[in-house]
């Protein structure tokens, strides 16, 4: 199979790569571009550890082909902080001990950011349902929900 050239934008920077026709966006990010922040927990879209946004839409990058990134805007965990400045979600995840092993954390942060862009003032139930596609096996989700709400409150200026 002949490789496909892809021109895309990742975390605001122009980016070109070659990928196989059947190669997932996750494999392209991790294997070809060295962006290993997105994780493969299942490869079937069940765990959310590979979450990124594609043109602003939250997706499991294991269910997207690398070739689909052509002309798109991709955002990954590596682009969430502004240089040295952590995003409020990142800061509150550390302060609220919302991670233990941390393998699900990049995906959950990307997903939570997408939620707060859509709804800056979600209820706990809204957060729980939005994050239902992101599995965490360590925390029982309690501190994750609290961290998201603390970040949301800060971002609203509350």
């Amino acid at each position: 199979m002949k490789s496909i050239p892809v021109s895309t934008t990742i975390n605001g920077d122009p980016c070109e790569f070659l990928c196989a026709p059947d190669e997932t966006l996750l494999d392209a990010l991790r294997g070809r571009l060295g962006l290993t922040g997105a994780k493969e927990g299942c490869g079937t879209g069940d765990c959310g550890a590979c979450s990124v946004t594609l043109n602003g839409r939250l997706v499991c990058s294991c269910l997207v082909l690398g070739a689909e990134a052509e002309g798109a805007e991709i955002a990954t965990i590596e682009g969430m902080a502004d240089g040295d400045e952590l995003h409020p979600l990142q800061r509150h995840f550390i302060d609220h001990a919302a991670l233990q092993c941390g393998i699900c954390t990049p995906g959950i942060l990307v997903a939570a950011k997408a939620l707060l862009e859509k709804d800056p003032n979600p209820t706990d139930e809204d957060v729980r349902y939005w994050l239902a596609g992101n599995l965490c096996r360590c925390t029982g989700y309690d501190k994750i929900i609290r961290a998201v709400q603390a970040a949301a409150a800060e971002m609203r200026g509350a």
Partner: protein
Amino acid sequence: MSLDEYTRREFKQVGTRVRRPDGVDKVTGRALYGADATAPGMLVGRILRSPHPHARIVAIDTSAAGALKGVKAVITGADLPVQEDNFIRDVQDNCMARDKALYDGHAVAAVAAVDAATAKAALKLIKVTYEILPHVTDVDIAVKPGAPVVLAGRTLENVPAGMSENVTSHCEFGHGDPEAGFARADHIVERSFRTAATHQGYIEPHAALASVTSDGKAELWCCTQGQFFVRTLCAAIMEMEASQLRVTASEIGGGFGGKTTVFIEPVALALSRKAGRPVKIVMTRDEVFRATGPTVHTSMDIRIGMTKDGTITAADAHLRYSGGAFPCGTVDMGAQAAFAAYDLEHVRTYGWNVLTNRPKEAAYRAPGAPQAIYAVESVIDELCQHFGLDPIEVRLKNAARKGTKSSYGPTFSDIGLVATLEAAKQHPHYCAPLAPGQGRGISCGFWFNFGGNTCVSLNVNTDGTVGITEGNPDIGGSRASISLMAAEELGIPYDRVRTIVADTSALGYNDVTDGSRVTFAVGLATIKAARDAVKKMCARAAKIWGIDEEAVEWKDGAAVPAGPNAGKFPPMALAEIAAVSFETGGPIAGHHEVNVDGAGVSFGVHIVDVEVDRETGATKVLRYTVFQDAGKAVHPSYVEGQMQGGAVQGIGWALNEEYIYGADGRLQNPGFLDYRVPVASDLPAIDTVILEIPNPGHPYGVRGVGETGIVPPLAALSNAVSRSAGIRLAELPMSPPRVLAALDG
């Protein structure tokens, strides 16, 4: 047991909620986990797995696979040595079958190729000739004489005659005369229970990168709970000296006991040795479910007698656990834990380990305890309901205390069960009103906790900072806790201490991160390494001041003269002593090496409110509170995290999670869609109450907290379902179809 370690003190830093040192790496995607490692010239390794639950491997033809362009190595069980030792042989045979495939998913061959597509194509070219054998995947069938025998010749002498050869070991614990005790009971409940096998469910699949060079040296990077044990196992399988194999633990994406052994690591090493290039293997989720450790599935009979005032007069338990296709000792832990929460005059537990054609069990958070305690706590609840007694009062009446001779032998020292039950009784949750159709359940939980082999180096840097080298992978924030304890002992700020997890060449042997041992044992070794460094720093100050070493003591992070007779010198802070260390005798470091005893047992109590949907059979968890004794909570947020995470794994076990085997012996649900772990929308907040009853075996009173939290949810949920819907299920999980069947029955 070391009972003299603890001294009461006021903590300045221990008990605060500091930021973990690996936090920024983990929220920015920089932390490197098992699958994130690469090496120059790296090949991709893939494994061929048996589709049959039980089959003799007649022949394996790898010639076509080996001839495929881009394939650099192919191995089968024949490429690994014949092992004399049963334990090592089982580990090796589980990584790569030799004569028989023993379960659906058992590895039979592996390839290393230039890329994943080539490796996958090569697997399809391997021809395995199987002779299919009868299989057995259910513990109750496997114990019967005449059942298909999974492994012959592995039955220990203590197994009574007349049972299937699948029964490999037997154990018995207890004291008193149960029959005499039952004769005094006003009511006896005898029930049988079954629990499904559940998987640890870590989100990170196993990953290993091996690089073996032609001079016999090897590097192995992998996600593991214990790099030193990985080295022990792989060195034996690869017939290497320990010093030639350096194992580095990556950041680990969850383990819960499941990453305490090896699966792909020896395979990656063997492929790398054969190919002469680095080889990386990353499991798929399907492989994780089919071929790594779930916990045991069980069948249990429990009998408890009680008088009408709630006193337990006698109890016994018969436990049959199956840890899959190889012998395991998990039933021993279940048999010991079953009645640990109670002070009983007459108690007996019996356990049998049974082989089935399922993957080899791996440890899972308090291995063996949740199942037995689920059954016991269910029967206690049934007795409480029978007599109309309050379930916490009954547990308080019979609770184990200091001085209780436990059902498994040892006499308890300071334990926190009564305090934990009292806290639960007084908590607003326990007396909150319930709506019609809602039910409240409680359960006790117990875990032994563990200490074990531990060594720590503490280096005092010349700028007054401190580096700690320890050997236990950090799964839930332990580097923060260890830095906190060092900072406390040295009297310097937490942010001046950095703790790293060393590879196997940098430190002596450390037992695996398991048994809730790390904060306890590594913490103890860290405190003692700090004391060793303090002693040396006092000696340096004494040398500078020209006084006796004994005349110097350590106070608030500085050396000071001990009393007025020692002389008048201003305090010399750690940073000042460190700055001149090259002139006073060289670098300063503290060490401690120990096989730690005195871990201090752990108890917890959970309260849960549920509502059962009579139409769908689904159980909704409405409110949940965890009470647990931490001894001393070094970092309370991460203690709460252990309590919450354990509770939710237990909720999953109680309500949804199970290994489902078809009549064909194949696992039917090897993925997160069909093996359903709890998701955020399934759950309420998990409230926590930390009790602190100091463990006499630790300088700061610390007890391990990691495991106990998974124990109570199973019975707490079952008891709540019973009180909500009027049905007593005797099998886990209480999945909607089972609940509906019980409601209809």
